[in-house]
Structures are given as structure tokens and as C-alpha cells.
């Protein structure tokens, strides 16, 4: 987790999952919850989900759309997409670095 989301504390990891979930289009809370569960393999509690959504809205990473019935969809903002890209590239670099070291150690 790079510096951008680290300040979110325990909400940093759920935030990254939610950003990934919204990267293919707007979703409402329940759809995000199911998607994150499928991505991470672990359930996302409703309190954690809305704690993360509130922080993401506050930071301008996501934007709430007009509700459809009682469900309000959220979409990624430009800042959210940039932040997600930086996070994933950072993780990819970290993964490459770790794998290279592991290969070097096994030689």
C-alpha cells in the first residue's frame, strides 16, 4: 500500500478493493460488497464498506450518483482512477522486485 492510501489506516485495503470494483463502471453498495468479496475472497462488513465510501467521497476518489430506488450508485472520479493506477503500478513494481529477489536467492 503506497503513501496515497496509507493515511486511511484500516480503511486503506478496503478502499483499494472498492477502487478496483468501481474501475469497470458504477455500482451501488450491495454490488460493491459482493464484488469485493469475489475479488478478495473475504467478506466486507457493511460498517467498513460505508466507512471507506465516506472517506473516498471526502477525498474525491469516488462520486455518488443519483439514487435509483433506494440504491445510490458510486462511480470512480478522475482522481480515483489516477490513484488506483498509481496504487496498482506500485504494487506491480513491488511484486516484480520481490520475485526478482526470490529468484536471485534460489540460484
Amino acid at each position: 500500500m503506497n503513501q496515497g492510501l496509507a493515511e486511511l489506516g484500516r480503511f486503506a485495503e478496503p478502499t483499494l478493493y472498492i477502487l478496483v470494483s468501481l474501475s469497470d463502471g458504477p455500482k451501488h453498495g450491495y454490488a460493491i460488497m459482493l464484488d469485493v468479496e469475489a475479488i478478495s475472497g473475504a467478506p466486507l462488513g457493511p460498517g467498513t464498506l460505508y466507512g471507506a465510501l465516506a472517506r473516498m467521497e471526502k477525498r474525491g476518489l469516488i462520486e455518488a450518483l443519483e439514487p435509483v430506488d433506494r440504491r445510490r450508485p458510486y462511480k470512480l472520479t478522475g482522481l480515483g482512477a489516477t490513484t488506483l493506477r498509481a496504487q496498482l503500478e506500485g504494487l506491480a513494481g513491488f511484486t516484480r522486485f520481490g520475485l526478482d529477489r526470490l529468484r536471485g536467492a534460489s540460484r
Partner: protein
Amino acid sequence: MSRLIGLYPGPWRARYEAELRDLLAARPPGLAERLDLVAGALDAWLHPELVAPVVADRRPSPRVRLAGLAAIAGGALWLAMSMILVVLASSGRDADLTIAGWVVLLLLTVAALGATPPGRARGVGAGILVAALLFGVGIVLPWELKPLPVVPLLLVVFGGLLTITTLRTGLSRPVQRAIVGVGFGLPFPVVIAGLAGLLPALGSMPIVMLPLLSVYGGAWLVVGGLLLLDGGRRRPGTAAPIGPTEVAA
């Protein structure tokens, strides 16, 4: 479940409660989710800055704006009529202000109907129409044939219109009662004086009549101004759920 959502602070519930209820209805929570909700509520109390305070939209709707403008116009015309009437009466002359009186009645009716919530406007409108028709019958009759309650009926109609309109403002109950008291209380001495045959004498005393009638017109000006200023809310600070753009700020 509603008890757990009730643990969250008010502004948070105003923003997220409907969504969260929908989510919990789609997926009833187990023990872990319930504990997560309690932790989420604690977090929401510790970080109130995450949800912007609920801001009341104080802009009046076009309907309420029309009511406010009509109340101000009606009140101003009433004041002008009162002055003309009293000044002329004090010099022993008379003036036919019937048309102006009808315009005042029309404006105040528009104010009362505009200030009434749409669902109740039909009943209020029917009551006003009946009262106006009765008054109209009295107006067109020759003075000798006028039924006795014409003038009291007019004043009761005016007082009723003022009451209906005042209830729509964001004023506190005591102030509302004071204005309604003006609407119903002030005209009755005039009625009693008229019935007792003292009206001509009163008319010749502008110092008595003018303040009496001016207070009534002033009440309409105050009510109209409040409708324009506070959007016709019943209670100050009544909050509307905030929209997405306000939260994202």
C-alpha cells in the same frame, strides 16, 4: 437492525441510512456484520468531518415565492387603502374602494393557497371560495339590504387567510400565535364599534383607526417577507438530505 443503524450520528444517517438499510435487507447481517456495524458507528462518531453537516435548503419554491409576493402586495395595498380611507373619513368624505378590496382579497387568497402544502390546498381553496362568495353576495347588495355578518365575515376571512399563511412560515409557535391574534383580534373591535354605531366616530379619529389597520397590513408584510426569506419551512433548520455534490466537498 434499525437499532444498530440508530447508533450512527444524525448527519451520517441522513446521508447513508437508506442505502445501508437496502444493503442489510438484501443481505441480513450475521454476528460479524453486526459487530462491524457497531465499529462503523463508533468510527462515524469519531470522524464527523467525513459527512458534511446537513444543510437546509432555504430557497423558497416558486409556489412559496408567489405566496410571499402576494402577501406583501396584499399587505401593502391594504395599508394604502387604510390610509386613504381614514384620511378621507377624517375630512368627512367617502371613497369607494370596493375593487381595491377585492384585489386585496384575491392577493391574500393567492398567498394562503400558495403557502398551503399542495395536498391540502383543495380543502383550503374550497373554504376560501365559499367565504368569498358569501362576502361577494353581501358586497353587491345595497347597503340597506346587506346582511349583518358581511363585515365580520370579511374580517374573519382575512384572519383565516393570515392564519393559514402564517402556519407555513418558520416562526416559533408564540410568534405565530401573536400574528394570528393580530389577524383575528384586531379587526373585532372595529366590528363591535361598527355594530354599536361608533364607526363614523372612529373614522374621524385617524390616530385610532390608522394604527389599528396598519398593524394588520404590517402582519401580512412580515409573513410575506418570511415566506420569501426562509422558504416557507414549518420549523427553522428542518433539514433536507444532502446531495452527492455536498458530500464530496
